[in-house]
């Protein structure tokens, strides 16, 4: 089974347009964790020059589904301070947690959309007031000061910026960084690599388990496995499970 090819299919949200895999893309444009650090550049992949792309490659477009550009910039900066990458290793930005949140807000997390609308607007308003620019353009130290006050619900002039909103964004940032890449984050498995999770697999032997984080990563989404793709059941997809009368 060619995992790379399977990976491509959910690269853009499980849609049909297959593309080159994220790893090929990152390699192809020479991007490293450090090069991806710029706050607010959530569309860096789309900006990648296609000069090195082979003719069969299909351009990856990653439109945001619900967040505005200002919202995504603020959110990416926020998430990047929660799980930063200034130690040189990938964080929430490289995992594309914002992409995960954006997609979630149009579906399973839709109930949180209004909280994001209000919270991110308040974040930029407050940043403008105290620092003279939008949140994403503030220096990291100023961003951290605002977040720190938020965790203590200590921004009386902007009550929306409270611990509840912080916890919401923190929770979703974690989920966007460490969930299966199928959901749009954990790009290139950077989240799983960060904490040493060797990835989902069909079975685990005692020897594999004993290796802990030294086990070679599986580098696959659950939905790279033919047993779980949502194509109609075929003979291959039914392998490995007991059959019974239904």
């Amino acid at each position, binding site marked *: 089974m060619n995992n790379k090819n399977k990976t491509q299919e959910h690269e853009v949200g499980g849609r049909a347009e297959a593309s080159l895999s994220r790893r090929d893309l990152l390699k192809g444009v020479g991007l490293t964790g450090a090069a991806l650090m710029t706050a607010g550049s959530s569309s860096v992949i789309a900006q990648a020059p296609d000069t090195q792309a082979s003719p069969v490659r299909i351009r990856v477009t990653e439109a945001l589904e619900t967040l505005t550009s200002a919202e995504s910039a603020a959110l990416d900066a926020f998430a990047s301070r929660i799980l930063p990458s200034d130690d040189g290793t990938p964080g929430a930005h490289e995992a594309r947690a914002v992409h995960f949140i954006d997609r979630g807000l149009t579906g399973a997390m839709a109930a949180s959309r209004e909280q994001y609308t209000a919270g991110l607007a308040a974040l930029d308003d407050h940043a403008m007031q105290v620092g003279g620019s939008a949140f994403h353009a503030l220096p990291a130290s100023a961003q951290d000061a605002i977040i720190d006050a938020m*965790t203590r619900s200590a921004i009386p002039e902007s009550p929306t910026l409270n611990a509840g909103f912080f916890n919401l964004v923190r929770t979703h940032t974690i989920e966007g960084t460490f969930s299966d890449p199928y959901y749009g984050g954990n790009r290139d498995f950077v989240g799983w690599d960060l904490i040493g999770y060797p990835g989902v*697999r069909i079975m685990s032997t005692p020897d594999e388990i004993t290796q802990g984080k030294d086990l070679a990563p599986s580098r696959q989404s659950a939905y790279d496995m033919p047993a*779980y793709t949502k194509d109609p059941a075929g003979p291959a997809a039914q392998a490995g499970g007991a059959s019974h009368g239904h």
Partner: protein
Amino acid sequence: MATELPRTDVVVIGLGAVGGVAVLPLVNAGLNVIGLEAGGWMTTRDFAPDEMRNNIRDWPQAVPKAKNEIPTSRANINFEAVQGGGHPMMNGVGGTSLHYWAQSWRLNPWDFKTVSETTRRYGAHRVPVDSTVEDWPISYDDLESYYDRVEYALGVSGNAGNINGSLQPNGSQFEGPRSRAYPMPGLRSSGFTDMMSEAARNLGWNPFQGPAAINTEVYGDRPGCFYHGFCDRGGCHVSAKSSTAVTTIPEAMKSGLLKVVTHARVLKIVNDADGRVTGVEYLSGNQVLFQPADAVLLASQTYENSRLLLLSKSREFPDGLANNSGQVGQHYFSHHQGAPVLALFPKNLNNWYGLPAQGVAIDEWADDNFDHSDLDFIGGGNLWAHTDRKPISAAKMPTFDLVPTWGAQWKAFIRDNADRTNTSYIQKTTLPYRGNYLDLDPLVKDKLGFPVIRITAELRDNEKRIAAFTQERMEEWYRAAGAVQIVRTGLGTAMGPSTHAYGGTRMGDDPTTNVTDRFGFAHEAPNLGVLGASVMGTSGARNPTLTAQALAWRTAEHLVNNWDTITR
């Protein structure tokens, strides 16, 4: 007006962990059975190794019916009951046995005789004065052969501790005598469980792998466990987990006598002028159908069991079916699983794979296995250290107040410690009390306009003292294994919605304090049987499912053996 369907012998409402077991002895006796299930069939293809889907987004348990019937909950009548975000039960053929941990314990003999044994050993004053606990009408010995049948029919793995009175070194030294060993040996150990076992032995305790309805070798047409680690709130991708959807239900279907009706939303159990039930009214799509039957077995989990009885009002039962005694909904409690202990170790535990039923148990502090003479509570807790770790939950772990919860320090902390924490699972004796009950919520309704169940229940002193005592023991154990940081999590106050929910249709000989008789049939409606933990009067210190399944088998067998008198 409901469309009347052809008559059948037995209708089972709910094909989950218990309804799915009861159908087998019924069809084996040649009875025609219709199983009404609110959910549909799921297959191994639905059970992807996906933490987001299983553990964060609650799929597949958050399907529409259950999700629209989430109980409201409050500690006592001084509060307004509010609806929480999730429902512990799920609809689907196999029900919650699809996604449970599959721990399959027998109760301890003491759990059946809590009142008399406490009185005998310590005096009657030691039974909490506000508790409504009674001895069960049956003993462990009465249930033993049914435990055995279920363990073999489903496929339960485990290491026996007591076979016909002969103690076995690898099992619990406190379990009641069993007539034979489990059909399969227990789940394998891991480096982590070996470490915990050694620490327990150093404390003078007897650690053992607990039992699970999970194959450890090929059993029938199903394989042994693959240990990939997505059991918790996930179905098994290779059907090694012995849910009723892959065991007793398909086995019963082979007879041709069980008809499974999916997406059947039961509205009411109907009764006649003599108080006998005549069948079940249910919604299929937008059609209301009436399924007549000679006997009805209600198996829709504790909350829905009480709810459906309370909603089934008639001239004969103005306050709900089988509720002229006012006992439906009483003696409710949800199992006291809160107050775990979290530990941080100075080395990786290699727990990325493995399952929550793969763990090591300590029974020294459970039930009445230790002397309570100088203690201020009765009962105790089963300590459970298990392997189960996934990346999102690892990243969400507490920071033990060592670092902030965000930023560079936090990132370094989770990078270094993601595989170094463990959370224990401590199940504790829980009792029924006056003032703790289920009824219909006066305000909150489901989408069809029927009231949801309202929980009014709070933990009392006995539960709080067990929590403090067992957390102490758990910390001792973790420290002995080398833990460097410990957090004890709070207990909470309300006995809110839980998969381990008990009572509401308690089983007992006295019809003024119990809804069902010693065989699980309603005192007031003799051809209505009730299946599930709703008939249980004590929780024990362990998971209810196997006991509820053994009781379900026994109720079904009683129906078979007394068919003429029960159905007339």
